[in-house]
């Protein structure tokens, strides 16, 4: 059973069209949920860490939120430079030394 599931797999938006990416998890005892961005040909770039339900973090056009079962990455008025794959990963009580990664959402923002 997948422990971290991201949806949709791919998303295409027009510039300025806001949307949300989802990361759901089935592990219990969450120790942290992490969002990364990955551009083609590059390694992931850290964005946010969320630790508890109700927590929110913002950076420019991105806002990450967390509930007890999922996290959303809201993208407000996206620009073409926001095009990337967005990865989430969780750290849970059963294995607090290793992240469990999702497969990512590939976002394309058209001008």
């Amino acid at each position, binding site marked *: 059973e997948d422990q971290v599931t991201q949806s949709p797999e791919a998303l295409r938006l027009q510039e300025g069209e806001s949307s949300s990416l989802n990361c759901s998890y089935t592990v219990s005892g969450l120790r*942290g949920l992490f969002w990364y961005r990955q551009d083609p040909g590059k*390694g992931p770039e*850290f964005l946010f860490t969320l630790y508890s339900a109700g927590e929110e973090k913002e950076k420019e056009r991105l806002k990450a939120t967390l509930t007890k079962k999922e996290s959303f990455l809201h993208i407000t008025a996206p620009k073409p430079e926001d095009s990337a794959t967005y990865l989430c990963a969780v750290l849970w009580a059963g294995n607090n030394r290793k992240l469990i*990664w999702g497969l990512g959402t590939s976002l394309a923002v058209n001008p």
Partner: protein
Amino acid sequence: SAVISQKPSRDICQRGTSLTIQCQVDSQVTMMFWYRQQPGQSLTLIATANQGSEATYESGFVIDKFPISRPNLTFSTLTVSNMSPEDSSIYLCSAPRGSSYNEQFFGPGTRLTVL
């Protein structure tokens, strides 16, 4: 922020050969991590490399196949030994951004193709 470089950026290798990937960090870090990223699969941790001690390997990865060196606090190598086409992947190294070792800086990756 730390800058991490990897060499080579890509390589095409023959079955049965070995390839050593280098990872250089521009600042001293206690831990370095090696990951594998295969098409259609999630990022997978291979091992954690600490300076002055043996690397810690994750389930499914063994030292004979993926020997790791960590000679100092800014450098590490990963060797992919006796390669097969199944080893074709992107290999990434990373290091912690600060006290939380799950917030990581990543290198650009090494794209390996095994024929």
